[in-house]
């Protein structure tokens, strides 16, 4: 059995700048390594190791199901993420994973789906949206509501159009906009009125800053979506990623192994505890 604490060596196969501080990296395994790393599913994360700088949990933003390179979208905010973003094609990155649970896409079949993303939170949702687009006929109304800091800080803008073409209603909003912007300005919660929600048959997938997810969850509950069908991806300081070290413990839950995707019903009481 593979040691889950042992990073496998991957190489940067391609790199694309998404925003001023955010990069998407495509990672290919070094010879033999891929056989020993399981396939990732939408919602799961890897521990990416920038040798000499540190290790960080990063959700997959593509390459799920073991097809093609492993794709991660990373924002450079600390020493390890800065080092990962600075890696060039051919450079090595350590990878552990896949870790955590997944977005409940199959369970959502037959009902409406609303995906709510805030900022870089669109990256962990991207594989789920791709799955929804690929089997669009299995769902009712599918809506993506995306809030970003500014028009310049919207991720995957070309994909937003391709998702629209695939039958997903995509609505965007920004916190602030320069002169000449002709889109919406305001909170992402404002977009919820745009979504077609069939109450108890709607599944919601949310990823973004925790405060945003809290308010989006409350708004969806107001609109009749059941707490047990509202799924949010939590972020904490994962270290071991296998539930041993306790760094990501949130009350009785370990974000790394019990999550990162939780229902609002399960996580709401814990979000209200300030000491956590």
């Amino acid at each position, binding site marked *: 059995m593979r040691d889950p604490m042992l990073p496998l060596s991957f190489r940067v196969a391609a790199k694309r700048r998404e925003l001023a*501080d955010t990069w998407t990296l495509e990672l290919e395994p070094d010879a033999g390594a891929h056989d020993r790393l399981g396939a990732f599913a939408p919602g799961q994360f890897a521990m990416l190791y920038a040798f000499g700088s540190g290790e960080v949990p990063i959700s997959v933003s593509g390459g799920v199901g073991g097809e093609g390179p492993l794709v991660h979208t990373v924002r450079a905010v600390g020493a390890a993420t800065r080092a990962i973003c600075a890696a060039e094609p051919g450079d090595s990155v350590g990878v552990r994973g896949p870790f955590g649970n997944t977005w409940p896409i199959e369970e959502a079949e037959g009902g409406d789906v609303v995906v709510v993303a805030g*900022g870089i939170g669109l990256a962990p949702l991207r594989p789920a949206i791709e799955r929804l687009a690929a089997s669009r006929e299995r769902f009712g109304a599918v809506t993506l509501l995306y809030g970003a*800091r500014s028009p310049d800080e919207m991720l995957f803008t070309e994909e937003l159009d391709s998702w629209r073409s695939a039958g997903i209603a995509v609505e965007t909003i920004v916190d602030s906009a*320069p002169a000449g912007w*002709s889109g919406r*300005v305001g909170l992402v919660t404002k977009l919820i009125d745009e979504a077609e929600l069939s109450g108890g048959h709607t599944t919601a997938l949310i990823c973004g800053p925790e405060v945003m997810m809290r308010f989006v969850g409350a708004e969806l509950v107001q609109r009749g979506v059941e707490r047990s069908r509202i799924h949010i991806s939590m972020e904490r*300081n994962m270290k071991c990623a296998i539930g041993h070290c306790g760094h990501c413990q949130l009350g009785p839950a370990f974000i790394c192994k019990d999550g990162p995707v939780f229902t609002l019903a399960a996580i709401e009481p814990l979000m209200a505890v300030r000491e956590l």
Partner: protein
Amino acid sequence: MGSIKSVDELIAEAPAFAEMRAEQLEVIAGCARNQTFEGGEQLMREGEEANRFYVIRRGLVALETFVAHRGALTLETIEDGELLGWSWLVPPYRTHLDARAIATTHTVSFDAVCLRGKADADPALGYELMRRFLPVIVERLQATRLRLLDVYGPVAGAEAEG
């Protein structure tokens, strides 16, 4: 073919006026008319007397303020079903921001001076209007506070992102 709706009916459809008593709707409709703005047209100008407010029936309006060297910055957009303008309720009745139609925008436009007069004469109507405008003001205040948090910005000391 759909029938043309009266101003009373259009006002009653606005969420802010939902389930308002018919006689009160009739009174406020007496101060209202349909008005359409083309994209780029100004609905309100910062600093001017706040003598109108609007229900946006269909379209998109940007609330803007002019900042030297940066131009007109959009602070918020107002869309279908929403109320635009509450400065007419608060002395000294001056408009706080510019409002500009981004796309063709159909509104119900209210003569706020007329309505203020009616509200002064009929405190029950005045109370009802305040009861309906206050949640809008609170919601926008709360939205502004949350945006001040800049939740999508980089978090100092954070490492895991993506």
